[in-house]
Structure formats: structure tokens, C-alpha cells
């Protein structure tokens, strides 16, 4: 019944990320509010929002097609699966080899692909605006992400996140290339999640909207799923940074219940710290113009490429 246990752990992880994602967003919002000297809503507010949205009826635009209605489920599912494949508290889960880091990146890309399509389905200018900006941003963010994957994979000789985390845990010392990759990853994470300074998740001003413009026509349960997917994505990137660059506390393969518990605690801690840092970062910086974003992401791409090149050339490890 080893298999059952493994599947159980895997299931736990899936449910865990699903459960933690709104909380993380709530934390970030709370921290931001505090930093701005507001009281802010409760950290549980995202849960309440989701429940409320789920209960509401869906208002569909008249010419919305079936695609428009399917996309939220697809986006949610793809993001959820991707988030569940990133090691959170333990490595080497039974299905972790289903998809490596490249595939995870591509899964996120799939979600974005369908969301961008949905943005164009109703045929309003807002949707098209959001979609076209979104694909422009992703066309730089994705290669940057792939470069980061390269850099990590070259250090760890693997694109499997579990293996990478284990290698990192074993210690590879301080490396310039990895530092470059970390910076690039943070920049990509900011862009991917539509955070300040690339996008502002709480704006509805058409000149600056990206993600919000795309999903403007969504309402009710559809919107809830999309919001949840966005929260999962934030969680995913924080988990990713955590498991690759601060892998301490991760339960190794074959760890028992105590190891898992330690992993869970440390994971919670890392998320809390991450949320705080995100809030601090967003509070201290201003949103940039849309056409500054390519420069920002281009820098990320270059950093990633530089890190990879360094590794290729150094050839050690």
C-alpha cells in the first residue's frame, strides 16, 4: 500500500496549494495595506470573495461562444496542476515526474493562451487590448523563464524540480549564474503574475490594464475560477523560488511523517516571508508604462541568458 500513501501525499499537496492560494493573496494585500498605513481587509477576504462569486449567476455577453465558458475551467485546471507539480513541502512525490520545469512553464503558457483567446471572444476592444498586451509580455517572459530553467538545469543536470531542489539542498555554493537566474526569476514572476510594476491587479483604468482587461467580461463562477487561478499562480511562483533557492526544510524522498511536518511548517514560513517581500516591493515601486515592460523583461531574458552562458562556458558541474 505504498502506492496509496504516495497518492495520498500527492493529493494532500494538490489540496494544500488550492487551500493556501487565496490566503497568500490575502496576506499580500494585508501587508500592503499595513505598509500603506491602512487597516486593510482580513487575510481571509479572498476566500469570502470567491464564495460570493461562486454563488452569483454568470452574466454572459450575447455573442460569447462555448470557448468563453470553457476557458475558466481550463485555466484553473492547468494552473492548479502546474502549481501542484512544484514541490512545496516535500520532493519526489509520485507524480512529480509527470512534468518537469519546462512542462510546468508550458502549462502556465497554456492557461495564458486560452485566457487570451477568451479575451477576444466577446469582441470588445477591452478584451483585445488585454490579450494583445498579455501576449506581448509573455512573448518575453516565457523565453526568460526558459533561460532560467536552462540555468537551473545546467547546475542540477536535470529539469526535474525535485532533483533540482535536492541538488540545491545538498549545496552548490554561491554562484554568480544562479544569482542572475534568481533575479531574472523574480522579474519574470512579477510579470507573470501581473504585479506592480508590470501590471496592477487592482486597476481598472483602460490605459494601464492588461490582465484585468482580458477578463473584463467574466462574472460569477467564471470570474471566481480565474481569480483562483491567478492566486494559484502567485503561489506557484513563490513555491518555485522557495524550493529552488531556499530549499531548506523540504522533506526529501522517503521522509516520514515528521519530515513532512517539518516541510509543511517551513513551507508556511517561506510563503509568509515571500508575501511580505512582495508587499514591500510593490509598495516601494511605481507602475511602469506598458511599453517599458519589454525593456524590463528583456533585461530578465538577458540575465537568464547570461547565467546560462556562464554555465555553458564554465563547464564545471
Amino acid at each position: 500500500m505504498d502506492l496509496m500513501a504516495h497518492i495520498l501525499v500527492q493529493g494532500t499537496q494538490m489540496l494544500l496549494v488550492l487551500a493556501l492560494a487565496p490566503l497568500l493573496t490575502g496576506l499580500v494585500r494585508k501587508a500592503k495595506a499595513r505598509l500603506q498605513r491602512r487597516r486593510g481587509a482580513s487575510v481571509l477576504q479572498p476566500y469570502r470573495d470567491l464564495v460570493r462569486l461562486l454563488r452569483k449567476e454568470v452574466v454572459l455577453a450575447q455573442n460569447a461562444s462555448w470557448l468563453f465558458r470553457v476557458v475558466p475551467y481550463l485555466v484553473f485546471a492547468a494552473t492548479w496542476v502546474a502549481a501542484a507539480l512544484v514541490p512545496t513541502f516535500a520532493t519526489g512525490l509520485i507524480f512529480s515526474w509527470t512534468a518537469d520545469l519546462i512542462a510546468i512553464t508550458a502549462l502556465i503558457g497554456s492557461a495564458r493562451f486560452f485566457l487570451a483567446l477568451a479575451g477576444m471572444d466577446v469582441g470588445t476592444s477591452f478584451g483585445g487590448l488585454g490579450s494583445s498586451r498579455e501576449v506581448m509580455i509573455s512573448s518575453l517572459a516565457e523565453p526568460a523563464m526558459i533561460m532560467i530553467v536552462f540555468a537551473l538545469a545546467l547546475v542540477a543536470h536535470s529539469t526535474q524540480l525535485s532533483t533540482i531542489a535536492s541538488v540545491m539542498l545538498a549545496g552548490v555554493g554561491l554562484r554568480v549564474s544562479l544569482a542572475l537566474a534568481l533575479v531574472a526569476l523574480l522579474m519574470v514572476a512579477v510579470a507573470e503574475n501581473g504585479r506592480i510594476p508590470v501590471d496592477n491587479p487592482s486597476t481598472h483604468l483602460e490605459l494601464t490594464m492588461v490582465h484585468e482587461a482580458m477578463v473584463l467580461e467574466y462574472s460569477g463562477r467564471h470570474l471566481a475560477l480565474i481569480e483562483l487561478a491567478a492566486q494559484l499562480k502567485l503561489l506557484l511562483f513563490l513555491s518555485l523560488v522557495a524550493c529552488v533557492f531556499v530549499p531548506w526544510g523540504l522533506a526529501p524522498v522517503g521522509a516520514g511523517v515528521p519530515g513532512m511536518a517539518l516541510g509543511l511548517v517551513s513551507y508556511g514560513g517561506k510563503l509568509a516571508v515571500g508575501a511580505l517581500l512582495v508587499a514591500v516591493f510593490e509598495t516601494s515601486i511605481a507602475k511602469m508604462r506598458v511599453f517599458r515592460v519589454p525593456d524590463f523583461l528583456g533585461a530578465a531574458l538577458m540575465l537568464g541568458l547570461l547565467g546560462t552562458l556562464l554555465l555553458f562556458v564554465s563547464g564545471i558541474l
Partner: protein
Amino acid sequence: MPEAAFAAQLPPSGHLLVALGAVAALLALAALGVASAHRPAGRPLIYGGALAVTLVAGLSALTAIAAPAAGMVLPLGIPWIGTHLRLDALSAVFLAVINLGGAAASLYGLGYGRHDHAPERVLPFFPAFLAGMNMVLLADDAYSFLLSWEFMSLASWALVVAHDKEAGNVRAGLVYILMASFGTLALMLAFGLLAAGSGGGYAFDAMREAPPVGAFAALVLTLAMLGAGSKAGLVPLHVWLPLAHPAAPSHVSALMSGVMTKVAVYGFIRIVFDLSGPPDWWWGIPVLAAGGIAAVIGVLQALLQGDTKRVLAYSTIENIGLIFIGLGLALAFSANGFPAAAALALTAALFHVLNHAAMKSLLFFGAGAVLTATGTRQMDELGGLIHRMPATAVVMLIGCAAISALPPLNGFASEWLVFQAVLLSPDLPAWGLKLMVPAVGALMALAAALAAACFVRLYGVAFLGRPRSPMAAGAQEVDAFSRAAMIALAATCVLAGLLPGFVIDALQPAVGGLVGETMPAQGSVAWLSIIPVAESRSSYNGLLVFAFTALSALLAAVAIHRFASRAVRRAPPWDCGFPNASPLAQYSAASFAQPIRRVFARGLFAAREKVEMPPPGALTPARFSSSARDPAWAFLFLPLTAAVGYVAERANTLQYLTIRQYLGLVFSALVLLLLVLALWT
């Protein structure tokens, strides 16, 4: 003039006879096409016949991959050489690709051909084109190879100019046939060198025994890149492709883009991997560079086009770039003593060959269906087709997702393998390669991301939103034959994506024959994952990704519908206070591309936007126009044609001399020759 024995080195096999029979049958169909073009029975006869023949040939080729190589010599062609034929694993792989692609195109043509207003210009050439491609793959001597190669070009050229009354088609055909001829001449030179090495033996067997060395080998590589590259669409020899592929009838476009470019890839592999002997360490560099450049330039150009079929044609250039990246990696690994890694890279390239054949044929079929339904290829006249053409919309969505390399479809599987091959390259000893490979990897990642943008744009503008023209508003779903062809290809894309392991295993005989090593068997891996090197290193399981995603989505849907709300209300979309906005106010193809155009296309493509504002008080609308150029035209071909024109103009004065001046020419020639005699001998 060495006499070659007319006996083949290899025994013939049933597979080879089937393939040969297929060629004969297709040629007979071509002749029949001339005779029956004007009869109503002509179309079903030709396309039905072609469907049957290619299906049989394709299935036979599939089983031939694992069979031992077979050969045969016919007393045709160059008299003292004969026509050598050979069916080995590599040609079997490509035979399967082109015949199955051909079968799909024939099936599609059964319905699509009904709308053709000039069937006599299509029916004879369609089977001839298929026959030509088959012949290239069977040829085992330089003459038969080039004859078939050029015959294939000629037949497809006839198809490109089939609709010669439409603007631009004749010019497209012209550019096409010129570039084709350029390619053939380059290959002719390459074979000249290869044959020189073996003392004038034009048979491939003779060339294999005496491969070129040193500078000659480098020259062969260069010429193969020029020759095969011009047919495949490598930048900057791609200029004909976006003109010619869209000009042909759509099922032919599918064949040209999806299948014929693969024949070009085959030609490159055959010459470089098979006939040129062991590669030098640096051979991978130019191939990688060409692939990377083609990938990015191709997809960027695709983003700037407003014509559906032209978008697809440029996207072909991108995918050819990806295939050449795979081939370049395989060369680099193979030359530097990493046969296992070479096997991975080559497998990735071949896998992508197969995938692209399926995806691009599917997409061209879809574009053809849209063309039939609406009468236009301009994206800005389409929109909302998802409501009017539901089946086409679904298969096109699959095609777009597949070519955008989204898991769990097939495009992702092959790109994933290429990335895995890239990640093995730090082992390569040479510095040039060390710097080159990651850069190319970045280009490839960029191309993949841009491809997704490109197909969001294509699908979003053409199929989603509201119709931008009456034709789009009145579109009807296409006939059952066309749908069947598209569904079959879409199913192929899904299956190859979910079960990549079987495809990889099937390709191994061909890979092993070329680089001397195969990838580990994938069919027996638990859960049907693919593990190219080792499990700890990387693995991917399309089936499980699909299962998890589908399950999660289903779970979410069921849960929400069961426990939360399932109410739906239809309402007008949010109009920002301006009700009844015109459908033209939607994002168009040009406006969707605007951010990317600004970011990527300003320099090299000289993308410019121009807004003409009416003077104050005037009631005319403001006009927006955007323009971009293809750098290959701007920097290479236009100057070249200008130079030819200039010299021709200068030379033309020779037409206007007087008799006395002509005599002067004769006189000068005489004096010159006498001087040579006086001074030289």
C-alpha cells in the same frame, strides 16, 4: 564514366515494390487527370484514387521503418548509372509522413475541390506532385534524386499558378520556380562534388564509399544548406514560401507547407548525415544559426501578416527553423563523439517533422475551409466563425494549440525534446558551440512564445469576436470530406502528444542508421512517460498531464455546478457607454500585433505606423496604416534584381550597334585571340 553494375547492392522488398507501385499509380492518375479534368467524375476519381494510393503507400511505409533496407536498380535515367532506388528507415519515415499527409490532402480535396473553378489546372498536377515527392524519397542516385526533386517543384509550381487570374499568383509562381531552380542548382553542385570524390559515380552507394574530405565536405554542407534550405524555407532563402504556399489551392498549400518542406529536410539529412561522411566539429554551428534565425524571423513575420494563409506560411519557416536546430544539435553531438545525445536531437527533429506535417496541414485545411466559407483570406474580414463553423473551429483550436507548443499536444512534445537536447550540450568541447547553443536555445524559446502569440492572434481574430464582414457573418460549415480530413489530423496531433513514446520508438531505426546510436526504448516506461536520458534528469508524460488537467477541470465544473450556481444570463457586453459599437471597432489583426510590432519589428523589419488625421472640421475618418518589410527582400533580393536589371540594361545596348560595330566585335575577338597565341604559346 565508371560503369556501375546494374545490380543493386540491396535486395528489393515488398515495401519498395509497393512504394514504386504507388509512384506509378500516381503518375497514371496524373495522366488520367489531364483526360478527365472537365468531367464531373474527374474530381472524385483523382482525389479518391490519390487517397487510396497514398493511404496504402503510407501504411506500407510505416511498417517499412523497422524492416531492413531494400534496393533496386531500374534501367532508366542516366544510361550508364541507371535509376537506383532504396527504401531504408529514413526514407520510410518520410514516406510515411508525406503519404499520410497526402492522404489527408486527398480526402480534403474530395470536398474542397468541388469549389475549384479551374479543375483542369489542379487535377493533373496534384497526383504528379505527390508522385514527385515519393520519387525523391526513393531515389538513391544523384540524377534520380534531382530529377524527382525538380519534378516535384515543377508540379507544385503548376499548382501555384493554377489560379493565375488572381493578383499576385503568377508572380508568386515566378519567385517560387526561380528559388526552386536555385536550390536544384546548388544541390547539383553538391552532388558534383560528392560524385567527384567517388570518381564520377552518381549513385549514392558510390558516394557513401568515398565521402568528401576537408574543404570539399564543408562546401557540400554549404551547398546542401543552400539547396535544401531554399526549398525548406531557411532565411534568407525563404522569400518564395510566403508567396507560393498561400497562392495554391488550400489542400495543395497544406501539402507544400506541411509535406514538401519535409522532403527538403529529408534531402538535407540524406546529404549531410548520410552521404558526406563523418561531420566536422563545427558543422553544427551554421545549421544551428540558420535554424535559430529562421525560427525567430519566421514567427515575427507571421505576426505581421494579415492574410491567414500567409501567416501559416511564415509559421512554416519558424518550424523549419526548429527542425534545423534539432539537426544542428545532432550534427554537433555526432561530430564530437556524443552519439546518444545526437540520437536525442535527431529524434527531436524527426518528431517535429512529423508533428509539423500534421499541424500545418490541419491549419491550412482550416484556412481553406474559412476561405471556402467566406471567400476571403484576410483576417480583418473574418471574425465570429466559431459560431458559424463549429467543427472547423474546434479542430483549428487544436491545431493552433498544438503549433503553439502547448502541453499535452504534439508540438510541445517535440519542442521539449529539442530543449532536452540543448541541455545536454555543455558537454560539447568546442567554444563556438558552447556559446552558440544557449543563444540558439534562447532564440528557440523566443520563437515558441511568439508562436503562441501568433496563433492567439490568428484564432482570436478569425474565429472569435463578431463578424467583421457580411461574408464572415454568412459563413457555412464546410463539407463532410473536409471535416473528416481535419478531424483525422487533429486526432493525430492529440495522439502524438499524449503518447509520444511510441512515436519516438518508431523513429529509432532511422535515427540509429544515421548517428549510430538510438534513444532508450520508451514504450515500456511506466505510465507511458518519455524519459530521453534518465528519470532523474527529465521526464514528461503527456497522457498524465492531460488526465490531471481534464480531471481537475471536470471536477471543478461538477463541483461548482452541483454546489454553487449554474445560472446563466445573457446580456450585452460592457460597452463603456458607447452602445452598438461597430464590429470594426474590435481589435483587428494589425492592432493585435501592435505591441509586438513595436517591440520587435521596428529595426529589422522597419515596421512603421502611420496615422492620417483629417483636418479639423472634415468629416472623413482618420486612416491608420502600418507597413513592414521582409529584410531578405530589402537587403538581398531587391538589390540583386536591381543589379541584374542594371546589367541587362547595359548589355542591351549591344542590341543597338551598327553592323560596323558588330564587325568591330568580331575583329577585336580575332585580334585578342591572335594576341593570346602570340604572347602565350
